[in-house]
């Protein structure tokens, strides 16, 4: 295809051509970054929790009047829940992965350190990994006799009595890899406070944090042998068969209310519901981004159709003359297709630079990673395809202009 005549025609429509190029460049830049952000959100939303999500339900209760003995209350609740048909295991926990709230501790490897090594989520509760289905990859789970009541720990820390403090912990693989890269974490000690050093006795494959907003630190968790007792901030997590979740949840709530009627149920949900709430904003944002991409591409495609239609109508006589001079229908079709290809290509080149610029800005202001190079050719292909599709209609119409038009006056 001869390109020179196309260029010389375009030179006569400089402003319009540049406007189209600008539109394609802007679309290309925004779409590349938007697709990238969608990918980023989807990846975040598919974060693993490390637990048997579809088998778990959560119940949270709040007392109306102060409970005399919160530990006895919790023990009785756990016993009541174990009696509910369909319940396979039950535990009292201070939080669940992705619950949207979390207890975090600043960990040190040496109490003399001035700065913390990192911040990790601290889980408290008996039978926690067993109930939630967090897989053990090394060492052992925490034993029931290692657990102590929360008020004992608080008092121990307040008066410096280290005998009353927990001595062991189970940590996640991610935390172990970060604290002691390439070493065996079993037997090593982490310091939760200056006096509270705990020895690692087990490693879990995974257990996500309560608020895993940041992908890099999302799996930094550890479990301490502390029993919280009944309280409005803690919840019971129940393991059951996925198809029985709703029934078991109802029966469990009823059983708990019967055990102590002076309580209000503040949460009762399946783990799947809990997880969906945590990622609701990300899902909404991905949806908005997808909507904007669709709208942008539609507007741009319609713009191309509109402009190409104008040009075809404007050049009817020229087309007729070319046809009369021996140009085939294919020649005319290819002429408009090539013209579109040239314009879109120029737009893509500008768009790539713009996309890169936008990405640099986003990286500086919104903690987004660098745009992978792969997005640029993908974006280019998409725009070329849309450009060709959009121009096809007008170009076909152009190719059907009969040669006889040349002989008519405009």
């Amino acid at each position: 295809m001869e390109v020179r005549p196309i260029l010389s025609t375009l030179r006569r429509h400089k402003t319009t051509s540049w406007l189209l190029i600008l539109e394609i460049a802007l679309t290309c830049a925004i779409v590349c970054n938007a697709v990238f952000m969608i990918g980023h959100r989807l990846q975040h939303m598919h974060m693993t929790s490390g637990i048997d999500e579809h088998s778990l339900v959560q119940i949270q209760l709040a007392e109306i009047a102060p409970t005399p003995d919160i530990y006895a209350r919790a023990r009785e609740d756990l016993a009541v829940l174990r009696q509910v048909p369909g319940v396979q295991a039950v535990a009292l926990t201070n939080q669940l992965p992705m619950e949207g709230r979390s207890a975090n501790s600043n960990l040190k490897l040496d109490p003399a350190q001035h700065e913390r090594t990192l911040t990790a989520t601290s889980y408290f509760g008996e039978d926690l990994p067993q109930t939630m289905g967090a897989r053990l990859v090394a060492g052992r789970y925490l034993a029931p006799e290692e657990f102590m009541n929360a008020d004992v720990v608080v008092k121990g820390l307040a008066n410096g009595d280290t005998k009353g403090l927990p001595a062991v912990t189970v940590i996640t693989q991610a935390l172990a890899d970060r604290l002691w890269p390439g070493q065996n974490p079993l037997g090593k000690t982490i310091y939760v406070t200056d006096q509270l050093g705990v020895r690692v006795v087990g490693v879990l494959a995974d257990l996500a944090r309560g608020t895993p907003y940041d992908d890099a630190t999302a799996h930094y968790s550890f479990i301490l042998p502390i029993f919280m007792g009944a309280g409005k901030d803690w919840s019971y997590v129940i393991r059951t068969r996925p198809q029985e979740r709703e029934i078991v949840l109802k029966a469990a709530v009823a059983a708990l209310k019967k055990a102590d009627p002076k309580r209000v149920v503040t949460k009762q949900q399946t783990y799947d519901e809990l997880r969906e709430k945590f990622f609701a904003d990300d899902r909404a944002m991905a949806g908005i981004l997808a909507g904007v991409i669709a709208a942008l591409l539609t507007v741009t495609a319609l713009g191309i159709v509109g402009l190409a239609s104008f040009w075809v109508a404007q050049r009817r006589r020229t087309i007729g003359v070319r046809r009369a001079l021996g140009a085939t229908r294919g020649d005319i079709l290819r002429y408009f297709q090539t013209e579109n290809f040239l314009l879109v290509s120029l737009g893509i080149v500008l768009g790539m630079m713009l996309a890169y610029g936008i990405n640099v800005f986003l990286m500086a202001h919104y903690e987004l990673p660098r745009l992978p190079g792969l997005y640029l050719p993908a974006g280019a292909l998409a725009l070329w395809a849309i450009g060709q599709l959009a121009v096809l209609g007008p170009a076909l119409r152009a190719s059907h202009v009969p040669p006889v038009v040349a002989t008519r006056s405009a």
Partner: protein
Amino acid sequence: MFGYYFELALRMLRRNKALTALMVLAIALGIGTSMTTLTVLHVLTRDPLPGRSGTLYYPQIDPRDNSGAMPGKEPPEQLTLIDGFNLLHAKRADRQALMTGGTVPVQPDFAAIDPFYVEARYTTADFFPMFAASFRYGRGWDAADDEAKARDVVISSDLNARLFGGANSVGRTLRMADSLFRVVGVLGNWAPNPHFYDLDTGYYGHAEQVFIPLQSALDLHLQHEGSSDCWGNGTGGVGRIYPSPSCVWLQFWVRLDTPAKAADYQEFLIHYSAQQQALGRFVKAPNVRLRNVMQWLAYQQVVPDDVRLQTGLAFGFLLVCLVNTVGLMLAKFLRRGTEFSVRRALGASRRALFAQLLIESGVVGLAGGVGGLLLALTGLWIVRHRPSDYASLAHLDPAMLMTTFLLALGASLLAGLLPAWRACQVAPALQLKSH
């Protein structure tokens, strides 16, 4: 003349309905999305207490030990109980209030309503006058009630409606957490957004239902809600055990009417820190901050990143829509070169032609603007029905309505100027000669 041009414009636009529709739709979509996101951004960055926020300050001091605190670092975002009461009793500001969040079970007298939990604020007396809380009935308590650990409670109008049918409930008793309180005030329509005085319990759309004197709440061991940060051997509180002395978990606000008083107060904070250091309570050299409301909100970055991103995205989209419309309009005008040259040859001035074309593009812009406004209203309706904490705030106020109008007008003129100007450049003779 205007009427004639307007009629001409309508006739021209009708001649190519699909194209006109495309241009109007593109502008409407662009303006609709931009206005939706801009309105959300606008309500989220709003001053929670207009006219007052400049004199309200949030003092920060640094009681931490050396661990986890390097020189030049920001002090903690809350106060310990001891420092809170020290600063409160020092009474160095025009007004001051020490507070923290909580939740309490409300036990209605009648069996028809089951007990339920509500969010609470445990605070000292100056909270209400300092934050300009409006009362429907009664008023707040005073400093003497604070010290007397009075069982007083101020309730929201929502709770008043729920418990007392909206009647004047001042003097009635209310049972909460198995204790009896006396209602001394019912708030009017008062709920500052963002929830600046305690961001840890939520940024937006957040309002406490009951307000209880801080000392009374501590006395009764009512449950604390919010964040606590600890160092050393501190623990953040379990059940009814409050956070340790080496934990920050209270908010302290002061009103300082003049900049000079603010400067004096900053000096006082440094002096207080030095004094505590001399006493051995503080380890570090004085590290204080004194931010007013808007500075505090900016420092805490309360506006969600996603909202800013969406706004940027919407304006990018608007730009594409505008470029699209300019291109189409230009192509359309240029094609009518013959018509323009005939009009020019018949004596129409370039200015007259320009006016005619500008009106034609203005009609497109105006139609797009009206469409955009409708889309923005729809967009805000969708935002209000999403489960975000700021959902209920997404309303178009007069300022944003004006902005929409100006944006639509500006966008359409912008989209019309270039094509109109370019089309006016036709030389009458040349165009006529070729035909």
